[in-house]
């Protein structure tokens, strides 16, 4: 055997030495059901597929952490390109990378730096990827700064859940979501088992609302420099439309920012307010909170650890929401966020309804009102056909009732519904809009695949 090969083998032995201690022997902190084995390392290296959502401050940390832990089948998705201001903390990027895809650069760097890593980049938005894409993963870990994106991802993972005939959850359809977020010196990390524990929508109230000021204050009694900037943003822009009425204010456009800055200064002078600065203008327009590299590192490390625990079962996961606050000292605690029984996302288990393929919409409506399982009062029925929302019938709103009344007489197939299609039903008797899958009872040729 050549010297080089011996060295490599030796290196491989030493490289996973510490991880092996965790996975190949038991210990007092192990989960009681944990069975140590050498296969677990093989699983995380060769089978376990992890999707990292976001390749920014948290994403760079996550990709590095997971690759160094032995995960090889990593995918990372981000639609953004690299900007100069990212470089202080998004350490996988260099000055030459400015303007390039974050996902691609991050992957290139890590695959080169960490031997054996096979990370794959997706330079697109999360909404561009479909169910088939998400279903391939064992775990999704996300480091996003957008609540809309988080909610979308949460909804996607919920929609992948499968239920058994007795309406119990098929656990093999569960893709755990580990979610990290940071804001300045504050951060949080959480573990979500879709359908089993509190999800993003269950705890939507925990996200601080965007800081807003009363409209009348910014219009009449400004006291802070922020009031002046908000005034220009909310009121003056729409009034003066400096770039024409079709151009909306873009916080990334330096000309727009300069215009707002100038007008805000004028207003500030009028009210004797000082310290409207260009930076503050930018900050208010884009709602920027300075990112702190060490907060990202701490939160990403927590998330990566939870991914490792989920993948290996070597230790119990956190239960289930960790808060970190380093703005005064270092403070952290973990609490169990509760699953809301009326959560719009995770209590919305799809039911199915048997219906004849030549039935009318009226037949569905009657079933919803009369069948023991439903007994609804005035169900509003909508669906999605070819990606577009369609209101089938809604009696509570007069103008919609008039326009959709004729649908009741139509056959459901005429309305575009098919065997396996989902209808969405809202009614006062249920805490949420229900998703109901249609099952054609006399169906000969199965057109589920349509």
């Amino acid at each position, binding site marked *: 055997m050549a010297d080089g090969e011996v060295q490599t083998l030796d290196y491989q032995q030493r490289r996973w030495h510490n991880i092996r201690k965790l996975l190949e022997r038991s210990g007092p902190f192990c989960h009681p*059901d944990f069975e140590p084995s050498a*296969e*677990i390392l093989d699983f995380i290296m060769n*089978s*376990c*597929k992890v999707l990292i959502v976001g390749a920014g401050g948290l994403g760079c940390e996550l990709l590095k952490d997971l690759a160094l832990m032995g995960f090889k089948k990593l995918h990372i998705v981000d639609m953004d390109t690299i900007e100069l201001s990212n470089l202080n903390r998004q350490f996988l990027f260099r000055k030459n990378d400015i303007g390039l895809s974050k996902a691609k650069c991050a992957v290139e760097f890590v695959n080169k730096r960490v031997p054996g890593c096979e990370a794959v980049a997706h330079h697109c938005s999360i909404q561009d990827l*479909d169910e*088939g*894409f998400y*279903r*391939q993963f*064992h*775990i999704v870990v996300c480091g996003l700064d957008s*609540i809309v994106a988080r*909610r*979308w991802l949460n*909804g996607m993972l919920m929609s992948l859940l499968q239920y058994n005939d007795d309406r119990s959850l098929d*656990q093999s359809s*569960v893709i*755990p979501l580990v979610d990290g977020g940071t804001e300045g010196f504050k951060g949080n990390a959480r573990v979500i088992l879709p359908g*089993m524990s509190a999800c993003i929508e269950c705890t*939507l*109230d925990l996200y601080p*609302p965007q800081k*807003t*000021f*009363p*409209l*009348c204050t910014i*219009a*009449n009694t400004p006291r802070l420099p922020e009031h002046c900037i908000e005034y220009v943003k909310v*009121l003056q822009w*729409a009034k003066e439309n400096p770039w024409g009425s079709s151009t909306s204010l873009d916080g990334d456009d330096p000309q727009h920012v300069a215009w707002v800055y100038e007008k805000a200064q004028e207003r500030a002078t009028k009210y004797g307010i000082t310290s409207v600065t260009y930076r503050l203008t930018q900050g208010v327009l884009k709602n920027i909170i300075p990112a702190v590299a060490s907060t990202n590192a701490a939160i990403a490390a927590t998330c990566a650890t939870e991914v490792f625990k*989920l*993948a*290996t*079962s070597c230790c*119990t996961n956190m239960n289930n929401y960790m808060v970190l606050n380093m703005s005064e000292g270092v403070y952290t605690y973990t609490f169990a966020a509760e699953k809301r029984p009326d959560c*719009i*996302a995770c209590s919305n288990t799809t039911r199915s309804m048997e219906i004849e393929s030549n039935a009318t919409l009226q037949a569905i409506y009657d079933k919803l009102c009369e069948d023991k399982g439903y007994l609804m009062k005035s169900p509003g029925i*909508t669906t*999605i056909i070819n*990606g577009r*929302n*369609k209101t089938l019938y809604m009696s509570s*709103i007069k*103008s*919609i009732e008039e*326009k959709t009344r004729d649908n009741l007489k139509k056959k459901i197939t005429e309305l575009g519904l098919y065997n*396996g299609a*989902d209808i*969405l039903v809202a*009614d*006062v008797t249920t805490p*949420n*809009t229900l*998703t109901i899958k249609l099952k054609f009872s006399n169906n000969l040729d199965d057109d*589920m*695949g*349509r």
Partner: protein
Amino acid sequence: MIKLFSLKQQKKDEEGSARAGGSQKKASAAQLRITKDLNELNLPKTCNTEFPDPDDLLNFKLIICPDEGFYRGGRFVFSFKVGPNYPHEPPKVKCETAVYHPNIDLEGNVCLNILREDWKPVLTVNSIVYGLQYLFLEPNPEDPLNKEAADELQSNRRLFEQHVQRAMRGGYVGSNYFERCLK
């Protein structure tokens, strides 16, 4: 505890192997929630909604025709735009009818606390409807957007009432012209 390792030793489906029938787009949480809100909309008798496109539940109009107070006999149209982050963020509401009102400016901006700083995800479209209706019954000079109107309401109620009437009939108040909006 979910044992991923034992549950899923088998490799997962390769990318792109979408299951048959799984291709229908899922409704967003915002969509599910607004459907619920609208199906349970319980309008006071002075209010009505209009949906230019019944398939689009995210964009609609609310028409308020107050039957008492300064604005009795008027017809005021508000546009509602519900964004993808509903109900984390409130709908965007604008008044499309020019109105001489302390809390509504000439661009149609409305000063109603639950539309901005006091919005909470537990609130619904119904809460906003009642809030807007209340603005016509009890215009609030303490939170002015139209400062002239607010000052006038505080200093000279009769003059304010006359100006409201003039604006609703169609005409000038000061240098601002108001379209007729009587029913």
